[in-house]
């Protein structure tokens, strides 16, 4: 029983990280048709920014962590916005070239991170509570899981509320369904493009700080390693669907943990098989082409 709870909580924590990348990824694809390979770098840059600021401020208090989360989100948003304005927008609606550009950006940025911060992990300081454990029904659950799960749930509901109750959210939901028609109602859909990049970047940057808390370090490959799983999650959940991404994140991460534990470390393999099955039987994913 305690194994099950520990695996579940760890899976949920990891699922939270997957969601923080996959959510933005899915919205961007749904609205713009751009498969964003640079999304992992948005996460990495957020993680690095958060780590640098916490080094600057020193200490391992909650206040410092909070500030580094905000800084990570801001830096992620700024980098993503710049990416959209400078690299994606000039290739308006040329999806293959846009995806290629993000491939180039991801290769170049990871290499740059390696050049500046080195290839080795840089360890982060954490509030002491996060390293402690809490006993739940006999299982000793590391506290950082709670932080991850709580944050991801907040982000999910925040994004859903934004989509539901704001005019920009309305434009994004409509754009995911039919971009040309939004334009034909006199709305500049490109502003929504920039906005989803900014949101996706902010969430990924925020996720970067959380990922560094979970893994205990930042490295140039932090985002890239998570990105592959985020892609898988996005496809399984249905490109363009936020709720789909959330469900698939949990599904994938929990399945991965259980398969790793009970099926001799086959977690990644099971996920790949799941992806292939979903693609071949239901190519639009669980909830395809809906922004919410």
């Amino acid at each position, binding site marked *: 029983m305690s194994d099950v709870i520990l695996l579940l909580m760890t899976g949920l924590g990891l699922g939270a990280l997957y969601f923080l990348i996959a959510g933005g990824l899915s919205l961007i694809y749904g609205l713009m048709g751009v498969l964003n390979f640079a999304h992992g770098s948005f996460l990495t840059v957020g993680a690095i920014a958060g780590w640098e600021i916490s080094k600057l401020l020193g200490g391992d208090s909650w206040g410092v962590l909070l500030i580094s989360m905000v800084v990570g989100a801001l830096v992620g948003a700024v980098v993503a916005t710049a990416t959209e304005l400078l690299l994606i927008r000039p290739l308006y609606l040329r999806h293959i070239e846009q995806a290629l550009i993000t491939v180039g950006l991801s290769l170049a940025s990871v290499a740059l991170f390696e050049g500046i911060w080195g290839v080795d992990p840089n360890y982060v300081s954490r509030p002491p509570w996060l390293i402690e454990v809490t006993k739940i029904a006999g299982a000793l659950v590391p506290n950082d899981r709670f932080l991850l799960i709580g944050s991801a749930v907040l982000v999910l509901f925040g994004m859903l509320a934004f989509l539901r109750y704001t005019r920009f959210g*309305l434009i994004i939901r409509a754009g995911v369904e039919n971009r*040309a*028609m*939004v*334009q*034909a*109602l006199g709305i*500049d859909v490109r502003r929504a493009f920039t906005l989803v990049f900014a949101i996706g970047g902010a969430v990924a940057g925020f996720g970067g700080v959380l990922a560094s808390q979970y893994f205990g370090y930042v490295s140039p490959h932090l985002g890239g390693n998570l990105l592959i799983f985020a892609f898988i999650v996005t496809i399984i959940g249905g490109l363009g669907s936020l709720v789909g991404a959330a469900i698939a994140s949990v599904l994938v991460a929990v399945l991965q943990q259980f398969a790793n534990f009970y099926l001799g470390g086959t977690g990644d393999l099971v996920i790949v098989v799941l992806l292939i099955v979903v693609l071949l039987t239901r190519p639009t994913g669980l909830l395809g082409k809906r922004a919410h």
Partner: protein
Amino acid sequence: MSLLSVKSMSATIAGQLVVEDVSFEIPETGITALLGRNGVGKTSTLRGLIGLIDRKGEISFGGKDISGMPTNKIIQLGIGYVPEDREVFASLSVQENLKLAARKGLDSRWDFIEKLFPDIFGRLHQRAGTLSGGQQQMVSLARALVNENQLLLVDEPTKGLAPKIVQETAAALQLAAEKTPMLLVEQNLTVVKQLAEDAIVLEGGRVVFQGKAKELLSDEKLTAKYLGVGGGDE
């Protein structure tokens, strides 16, 4: 002076020429019908006008050159577009569809919507994807009519509707056209006869007739030649 003037417009979809060399003018009042056989490029002409597909040529609207403008800017000049096949946002509610379209907010338009489209007024919170075809057509029309426009572009609004609904739609169009001139693509010649003063006929990617609708529809030879049907009544 005409409201919309098009000179040798050509349009392409994925590199393929779908409108070759179209020129016409739209007067400042009334309904002008855009006619022609299936696949002749009527929809593409409308889409080209507002920049939804790549186009070349001189297009001026209210004296302004709009041939290089992006779609949203053109629409904001005061054009309401009702696409072929409705294209309502299926996952959004009726109200959200209207809200999205209303450039100056919806508040002052409720009476108007209730009067013109009582059926959808009672279903504001229903998801548009679950509406019947006729109701979806009303939403699509309402989306164009919630704004004060200079021109309406309406593409086959009666396609696939029951005769009774066709008449309701025609009535709504007539009401709308009292205030705003309209370029109307329509296959149902009864409706054309009922509504349109002027007519433009496309064939082979070009304009082959521009004149009074009555002239065209009362001449059986002409209608047979251009539209492939005999006479005006179906």
